[in-house]
C-alpha cells in the first residue's frame, strides 16, 4: 500500500459526527500514530475547530483527509463541520483531501458494495491495534456505533496516502 508519496506524509483523517468526530493519524502510510473519538459538546463549529487545531499542533500533519459528503437540503452539523474544516485548513495552507466511500473501498481492495462493517474489518486487519475497537455487526434497528467513526477516519487517511502524488 505504501508508495514514495505515502512515506513522506502524515495524514490526519477526520470524520465529524453528531457527538464529535472520529480521528486517525497515519504516518508514512502504514504507521498508525493515534486514533479515537473526540466528544464535542457545543453545537457550533468553534469547539470543533479548537480541538482540530490542537491535533494539528501536536501531530503537524501534511494532509487532512475528510469525507466528501453528499449535498443535503438545509444545513447539517456534519456538513457544517466539514465545510468549516475545509475553510480552516485552507487558511492554514494544509491540503485537504476529500474521499468517498467508493474510493475507500478501492484503496483497501474491497468490492464496491462492501458494507461498512466489512470495510472496518478490513481496516482492522491492516491495523491490528484497531481490532479491539471493531464493533459487532450492526442490526437494522441499531444506531451506528460511534467507534465506526474511527474506522471511517482511517479509511479517509488511507485513501489519501494511496492516491498518486499530486492528484487530489
Amino acid at each position, binding site marked *: 500500500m505504501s508508495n514514495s508519496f505515502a*512515506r*513522506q*506524509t502524515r495524514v490526519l483523517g477526520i470524520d465529524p459526527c453528531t457527538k464529535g468526530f472520529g480521528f486517525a493519524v497515519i*504516518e508514512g502510510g502504514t*504507521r*498508525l*500514530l493515534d486514533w479515537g473519538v473526540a466528544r464535542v459538546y457545543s453545537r457550533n463549529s468553534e469547539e470543533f475547530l479548537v480541538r482540530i487545531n490542537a491535533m494539528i499542533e501536536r501531530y*503537524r500533519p501534511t494532509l487532512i483527509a475528510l469525507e466528501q459528503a453528499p449535498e443535503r437540503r438545509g444545513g447539517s452539523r456534519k456538513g457544517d463541520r466539514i465545510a468549516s474544516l475545509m475553510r480552516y485548513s485552507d487558511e492554514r495552507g494544509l491540503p485537504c483531501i476529500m474521499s468517498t466511500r467508493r474510493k475507500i473501498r478501492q484503496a483497501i481492495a474491497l468490492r464496491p458494495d462492501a458494507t461498512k462493517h466489512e470495510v472496518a474489518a478490513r481496516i482492522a486487519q491492516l491495523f491490528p491495534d484497531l481490532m479491539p475497537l471493531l464493533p459487532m455487526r450492526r442490526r437494522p434497528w441499531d444506531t451506528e456505533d460511534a467507534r465506526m467513526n474511527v474506522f471511517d477516519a482511517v479509511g479517509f487517511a488511507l485513501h489519501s496516502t494511496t492516491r498518486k502524488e499530486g492528484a487530489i
Partner: protein
Amino acid sequence: MTILPLTTYLKMYRKRTGFTHDEVAFLLGSMSGQSVSRHEHAKRLPILKTALMYEAIFGAPVREIYEGVFVEVRGTVQARARGLCASLEKKKPTKCLERKISLLKAIIGEDGSANIA
C-alpha cells in the same frame, strides 16, 4: 520532502498496549498519570531512568520512542563530529588518530556504515 519525526511516539506505543496513563504510571513507580500525559505531549522529557522504563514496558528502544529527539541530537553530534574530524585530520597521522577519524566518519556517515537510524 521527508517529514520530520515527532518529538515522541510515546502515545502511540501506549495506545497499542491499551494501558491507561495511571497504569503506565504504576509500572513506572511513584509517578502520577499526569506525568505520563506530559511526556506524551512532549511538554517534559523524562529522566534517563524513566525513559529506559518506557523501553522496558513497550519493548521499543528509547531512540524509537523519542525519535524526534534522537534525530535532533544526532544532527548536533554529527555537526560537532565534522568539526573534530577536520581538526584531527590536520595533525600528524598515528594509528590512534586514524582510528578516531574513522570512528568520527562513521558517526557522520561518510564511510557508508552504521550510526544512521
